[in-house]
């Protein structure tokens, strides 16, 4: 048994067992933000969510948004590009701290 159970995604609504009013507000907001065509299409939103799912490494979200992307008409190439955007951003966010390292090196007189 893994810590994350695939079937548990379908139980997401159970977070409303206490303070259902707050859960309702969240789910309404979530549906409005991700599940409708707006200035961005549902497909574009699904690809953003898939990229974020990889960056945050959420197995539930990767399952859900792989399906969501397909059902919004995306193909594996688009989904893979979204994943690379997330990966590149993660790499960039690590590497830009190299400037911080340079600052520290200079302060030590080592650069």
């Amino acid at each position, binding site marked *: 048994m893994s810590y994350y159970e695939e079937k548990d995604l379908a139980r997401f609504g159970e977070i409303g067992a206490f303070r259902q009013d707050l859960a309702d507000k969240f789910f309404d907001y979530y549906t409005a933000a991700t599940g409708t065509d707006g200035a961005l299409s549902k497909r574009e939103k699904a690809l953003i969510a898939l990229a974020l799912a990889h960056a945050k490494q959420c197995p539930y979200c990767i399952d859900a948004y792989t399906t969501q992307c*397909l*059902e*919004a*008409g995306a193909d594996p190439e688009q989904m893979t590009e979204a994943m690379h955007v997330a990966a590149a951003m993660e790499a960039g966010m690590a590497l830009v701290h190299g400037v911080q390292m340079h600052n520290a090196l200079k302060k030590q007189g080592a650069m």
Partner: protein
Amino acid sequence: MSATCQTLPDFATTLQSKGLNLLPLKIETLQVNITKLCNQACLHCHVAASPKRTESMSDAILAACLDVLSKTPSLRNLDITGGAPELHPRFQDLVSQAKSLGKHVMVRHNLTVTLDPHPLNQASMADLPRFFAQNQVEVISSLPYYQPYFTNRQRGQGVFEKSIESLKLLNALGYGQADSGLQLNLVYNPAGAFLPADQAALQADYKKALKEQYGVVFNQLFTLTNMPIQRFRESLERLGNYETYLQKLAGAFNPLAAEGVMCRSLLSVGYDGTLYDCDFNQMLDLPVELPRPHILDTPPEQWLQRKIVFGSHCFGCTAGAGSSCTGATS
């Protein structure tokens, strides 16, 4: 039977719980499956058609279909399917005679059959586009995606490229061109166990991509849901996904789509003359509920008196925006 399987919803019970009583309406389309022979053997084919199949409609049954069409003005459409129906030796006769009866003729044309030699006698099929155009046939062709990957994965390596070549031949004769009157409609179905995207949005994507990348035009895109039967069911079972997929279809039940299901306005005829509510029931060997479910035995006047035969696969036609031989139903 697993615990999950025991909880699978029943289609008839679902209809009942929604207060839906889906009776046949006016039957406008006669869909005839004249052969299971095909030049392709696609992964999701609900007919399990291939170059090895031998089932073929006899002259007597073809004549009976034409006789029914001639005596039944309300049957406005003849929808010819297979296999690749063009491979049947009497295909062109059937089209010509139906046209002379004033019927609208639709052909489920797989595109590659024009370019491949006939699997039995190696004859060239290159004349098909011209024949379609001369007879004002509505051409309905499967193209599972506007890029090669999903199309070739489902229909075989190189099928996408051949399909584009064939579409260009149809376009050159006026098919899909504005005001030509020659209808060319494409069919999308998902490459796996998921529901189709919105039909209008996907049609816009197809039109843009096919025009920009290949100079190909068409009229409408029909989005179809994969039916959990035959080869697709086998692939779902191999992946351990069958019950999950059925649950997904049932969970997406849409009463509006249910009211528009094609079995209310269509009757399907098997190669041997047996009558079915639809092509899917035909492949599951579920004939219409009439005492003698055969085209030689039961005249069209009695077809409306039947009760449609439903099964769990029917959730495929009622999920989301619905699915029929002409795409979404809601």
